[in-house]
């Protein structure tokens, strides 16, 4: 029965969104992780989603979501002059991650809403299937 595929599809959506939430959490947690060199500084990460086509039935247009990978933000790191800082380099600079807290908050809300959407889909599908199973009872 094809309706059971919805569980896979919505499940993959939930999986992708929870991974996105994880990445947001990681970015937010590291927002103050300063360091003394450009290379060591944490860079904001973003997940990349990809639609997975049905391998068995390629004519089937209903697809789940897959994590294609995680990319690091190309935005410039914040260089701050703080000679009194314990981690300051010889020139007296420290480097802050390129995490934009506002962006991350918006990302977080978007991810949790999308997650909820998928949960709703699962719930209604479950109800539909239960009603179908109880047909004629």
């Amino acid at each position, binding site marked *: *029965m*094809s*309706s059971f*595929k*919805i569980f896979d*599809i*919505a499940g*993959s*959506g939930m999986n*992708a*969104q929870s991974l*996105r939430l994880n990445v947001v959490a990681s970015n937010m947690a590291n927002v103050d992780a300063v360091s003394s060199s450009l290379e060591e500084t944490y860079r904001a990460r973003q997940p*990349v*989603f*990809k*639609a997975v086509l049905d391998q068995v039935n390629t*004519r*089937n*247009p*209903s*697809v*789940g*979501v897959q994590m294609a990978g995680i990319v690091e933000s190309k935005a410039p790191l914040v260089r701050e002059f703080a000679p009194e800082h314990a981690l300051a380099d010889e020139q007296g600079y420290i480097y802050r991650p390129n995490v934009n807290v506002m962006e991350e908050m918006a990302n977080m809300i*978007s*991810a949790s*809403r*999308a997650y909820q*959407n*998928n949960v*709703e*889909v699962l719930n*209604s*599908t479950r*109800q*539909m299937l239960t*009603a*179908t199973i109880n*047909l*004629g009872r």
Partner: protein
Amino acid sequence: MSFDNIFGIHEEALRLRARRSEVLASNLANADTPGYKARDFDFAAMLRNEVQQPVRLAATQTGHIKADQGVVASTQMGYRIPHQSSLDGNTVEAEREQAEFSENAMRYQASLRFLDGRIKGLMMAIKGTSQ
């Protein structure tokens, strides 16, 4: 009374509704996938097709697999035209998909109710009692 069309249009309708909920679920799941194009199909047209001229393949050999009925091929699918386009090429509008999904689920349950009534009526006729 013929048993062939005892469930009338609702059997086909149910199958198509289930299929459509699958398509709408993938739209919602891919709400944040860059470049994903939301899809849907014209339910009324598909149902009319299915009832008027059901697609059946002739099985000339015993080994032939019966064609899946009520399946909507991707060529019969359309792409949703978004009200507002997004930068990453994704055309899913979550609110709209949600509305379509819940409407579809309600109509599924309506068809289910009809089927249920039909089955209960038959049972009554067979047993000669109500329940």
